[in-house]
């Protein structure tokens, strides 16, 4: 089987080891550049189920700001990020928004909730 080289930068800790991974098909046969075992876990994750935390904003009606920042409670599968952003784009919350409010429950069936990152008071509340 032909061997393929792929490069990764591990982000488990701030060190950011540059990893050189030799693959045969879907299998990792060799890894160089990692300073610890976590590099292997990282690459395994990136190859099989890469996930990311997603942070963005959502529209708010009647609040002191027109947008509220939101975040995924835990990382979601990387290939679904753009779909999630499109879903969030459709939503308009009504003020007041409270930190921790669930904006989307079980987003796109991933089991991950999207929450509000802060309070957004209603416009009349503000002095």
């Amino acid at each position, binding site marked *: 089987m032909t061997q393929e080289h792929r490069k990764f930068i591990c982000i488990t800790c701030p060190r950011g080891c540059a990893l050189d991974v030799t693959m045969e098909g879907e299998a990792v046969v060799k890894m160089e550049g990692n300073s610890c075992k976590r590099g292997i876990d990282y690459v395994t994750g990136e190859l099989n189920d890469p996930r990311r935390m997603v942070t963005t*904003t*959502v*529209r708010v009606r009647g609040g002191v700001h*027109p*947008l509220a920042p939101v975040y995924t409670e835990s990382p979601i599968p990387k290939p679904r990020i753009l779909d999630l*952003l*499109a879903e969030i*784009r459709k939503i308009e919350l009504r003020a007041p928004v409270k930190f921790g409010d669930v904006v989307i429950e079980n987003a796109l069936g991933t089991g991950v909730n999207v929450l509000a990152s802060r309070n957004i008071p209603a416009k009349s509340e503000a002095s």
Partner: protein
Amino acid sequence: MADKKYDVIIIGAGVVGSMVARFLSRYKLDILLIEKDSDIGMGASSANTAIIHAGYDPKPGTLKAEMNVVGNQMFDQLAGELNFTFERRGDYVVAIGPEEFAKLESLRQQGLENGVPGMVILNGADVRRREPNINPEVSGALWATTGGICDPFGVVVAAAENAVVNGVTLMTDTTFEDFIMDGKRIVGIKTNRGDFRSRWVVNSAGLYSDVVMHKAGLRPEFKITPRKGEYYVFDKAEITINNVLFPVPSATSKGILVTTTVHGNTIIGPNALEIDDKEDRSITREGLDEIWQGAINLIPSLSLRYSIAEFAGLRPGGNAPCANPDVNYNKDFIIEIPKEVEGLVNLGGIESPGLSSSPAIAVRVVELLKGAGEKLEEKSEWNPIRKARPRFRDMLPIEQKLLIENDPSYGRVICRCENVTEGEIVAEIHAPIPACTYDAIKRRTWLGTGRCQGGFDTPRVVEILARELGVSPLEISKKGKGSEFLVRPTKDEEAK
């Protein structure tokens, strides 16, 4: 609007056009002042060294010399009437080394010939006392006590506002296209906003004064060649220069100055680069290097670390020979009522000392019109006084307190670096000449010119402008149509 007939149309609301409008507004005339840009004074008038020259530099016998000296003398009264910032500080032509010192006397003689009062030659020790950071090789200076500094855009706004309050109609975003002729008589102008009829037209179009006069078939050999001058501005907390310092002048320019300004910043520049493009105000690596070399010759201890801004201005340099054939000079002002056509007051090539000369040029225009048979009847209700609007940062704490008590919006500081308040911004948006763009507010209030260069204030100014003008923030621009800050809401449905 298109059917209204004016007595005078003035093309170009720079400092010259605005001064002409102001001085003509005294008379019972219907006056229209047009300006192609979104705001007045966006040409040479707002990008220069801000000096009211003493008048020793222009060649004797030229209009430049005459207008400079007469204009200079008018500034105290004018500043008092129009309430713009002007300080008659005196300026110094600094000689470095013995050879340059020898040139000072001939400069002084030239000044005497031009009628400049109050000039003194100082020795090196005198100069060092007055400006401790001066190049230690300083050999002396020509001290011209009538030189001054001002806020040049402040002069334009003050003159134009006074004109408008006294009845002049101002139209911005209005570009002259052609004259409307009846035989050899100019009876009006065509613009992008329609045709306007008038008995007189004043050409004060600055960089485009050649284009305008050529449309009337005048002076085909006259050409405006823009000469770019670049500047550095320094942090006023770090660099303090006490005076206006010129080098000994060369053949092509007054040289690269190091000077204080009425806002307290030190600026250095300008260089003098001839270019073709009348809209090219880009700053260049070479230009900045050149002015830096010139500046450290005067003040070696300057540090680029403390520069906070750069800008460039274009001088509308013309090639008109002096009207007096005995004077060998071919870059003089054109100030005339030409014989070839009727109904035109032609002003061309008003580069430095244009700002200093502007009130004198305006007075000359009035005289020319009288000489051409215009019966200029004075308005009894003409008010030469224009009141200045409050500038929060220039006020004492007790004055600031009273201002805020009277209007709480003066309590909200929008530009942190220069302490410009919301009250001032709102006042400019609703002034006789409304400020509708960010740069227009910046020119008037000095907001955004400090260390953070608008980093903090821009979103707030956009919000205030949108609110006061009753438009979406998407329509707010830096300097007119095409320079809007924002392109769409973050959550625009169409984006994805």
